[in-house]
């Protein structure tokens, strides 16, 4: 394992400190916790938004704390959802009297730990709601199982629900905005290499030079299927067609797209995927209204990428384009 770290145990704690050093105008660390909260809190009477989960997905989630997105981000150990007391500390930091929306990716651990935190908040009279993100269409949705998991599309929920909260929408309305994002969104990813969890010290899986994993999550989990290595064009097409089908997109539909690096895949390769995407979208008559290309929700130093499509209506488009000022995502006034 080759990583720029000191000890496996201190990785997350040190990185949280480093985030505050890098972004003092944006972030403060709630003392004694793994919570990053806005350095300049939102006005009183606005809905707060908290997200979080295991670490190793940077810039998620601390990178999205700031105007127009999150109020607080809770970090667990690498790929391990945070404990309820930490989530609860995040809720308290984000509460400005109008309740707190929790944006939770659908993993058993996240769901349970955030649920227990809500029970704690309940006891304190802080109203909370949850938007459960389950955009990964690689996984079959089913009532009898854990269902689909949440991956990079989560950032669209942060952005759009975040804009609604800044507008002054109440907790129920902000939740509804977030739920609508989830209902109109689909994602799928693939890996060319595994990542190495620091505490584990070796790659989670091994892939031959001519193999890739389709339908991976964001924790170095194996994917749904191991397939022969594809060209940029093939893999982009495979994912795009799959997402278009899942969302039943039709000619004239407007979408936002996220081309997300899993970590090691450089911007050069993302740009090649993006060029193909444009061609496929044009061919299908689908309007690519906004492209988010880069590292949004990573899996440590895994090579690979994920694609997210979000169906836009007028309001979602406006909120997606609204001013945001966070360490990792900034949208300027135009």
């Amino acid at each position, binding site marked *: 394992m080759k990583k720029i770290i000191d000890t496996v145990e201190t990785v997350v704690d040190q990185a949280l400190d480093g985030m505050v050093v890098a972004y003092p105008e944006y972030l403060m660390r709630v003392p004694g916790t793994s919570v990053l909260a806005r350095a300049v809190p939102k006005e009183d009477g606005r809905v707060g938004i908290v997200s979080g989960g*295991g670490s190793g997905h940077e810039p998620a989630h601390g990178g999205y704390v700031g105007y127009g997105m999150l109020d607080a981000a809770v970090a*667990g*150990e*690498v*790929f*391990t*959802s*945070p*404990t*309820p*007391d930490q989530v609860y500390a995040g809720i308290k930091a984000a509460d400005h009297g109008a309740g707190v929306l929790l944006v939770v990716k659908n*993993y*058993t*651990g996240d769901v*349970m*730990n955030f*649920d*227990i935190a809500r029970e704690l908040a309940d006891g304190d009279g802080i109203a909370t709601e949850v938007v459960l993100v389950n955009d*990964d269409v*690689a*996984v*079959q949705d089913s009532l*009898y*199982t*854990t269902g689909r*998991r949440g991956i990079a599309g989560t950032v669209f929920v942060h952005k759009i629900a975040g804009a609604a909260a800044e507008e002054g929408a109440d907790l129920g309305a902000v939740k509804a905005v977030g739920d609508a994002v989830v209902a109109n969104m689909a994602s799928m990813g693939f890996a060319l290499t595994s990542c190495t*969890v620091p*505490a*584990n010290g070796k790659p*989670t*899986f091994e892939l031959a030079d001519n193999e890739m994993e389709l339908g991976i*999550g964001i*924790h*170095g*989990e*194996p994917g*749904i299927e191991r397939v022969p290595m594809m060209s940029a064009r093939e893999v982009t097409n495979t994912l795009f067609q799959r997402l278009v089908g899942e969302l039943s997109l039709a000619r004239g539909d407007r979408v936002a797209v996220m081309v997300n690096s899993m970590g090691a895949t450089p911007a050069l390769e993302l740009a090649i995927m993006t060029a193909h995407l444009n061609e496929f979208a044009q061919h299908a008559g689908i309007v690519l209204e906004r492209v988010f290309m880069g590292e949004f929700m990573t899996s440590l130093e895994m090579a690979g990428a994920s694609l997210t499509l979000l169906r836009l209506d007028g309001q979602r488009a406006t909120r997606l384009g609204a001013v945001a000022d966070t360490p990792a995502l900034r949208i300027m006034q135009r």
Partner: protein
Amino acid sequence: MDESSFRQLWRSFATLIREHKDELNELDAAIGDADHGSNMDRGLTKVVDALEASPEGSLRADAKLVGMTLMGTVGGASGALWGSAMLKFAAALPDAPTVSWADFVAALDAFVQALAQRGKATVGDKTMMDVFIPMVDELQTALTAGEPPFDTVRSHAREYSERTYDMVAKRGRAAYLGERSVGHVDPGSRSSALWFEALGAVGP
């Protein structure tokens, strides 16, 4: 069971987890995210410290301390499950320096119910439930039959864990793999079997 045996149980469990940490991470790497051993080890190290730092009082207080510590340090699915189930376990125990095996097994039943409530998993879903549900059943049966309940604890727990090898996961992150989860032992069932191994060692 007296308080010192109860503490011994957690020290032994912590030692077993430490010894099997890499194995548990490997099991989790195959069908999950490679952290189950690290998660449990982080939590149990703190449990041992916390018990050490806390004066003896009651088994129930110890159990609550264990639950709070696991809840606050393990994280992930197992943290929430072990944490909330241990709190229910504590609440179900009589507040006394020593508890009968019947009391202990009744509290274990509360533990399992808490797991079921939190995690919605049942036997066959390829989780820690595949060890805890049948094992607590066995203990209850043994107790009704008046037999010393812990005779077969070690080997049986291990067997139940091994049975998850053939299962398709329905809960937890292994469920995302569907059929691909077959052919691997569930890491949470393995660590649960280690708990029963520790229990067997302090048992009557």
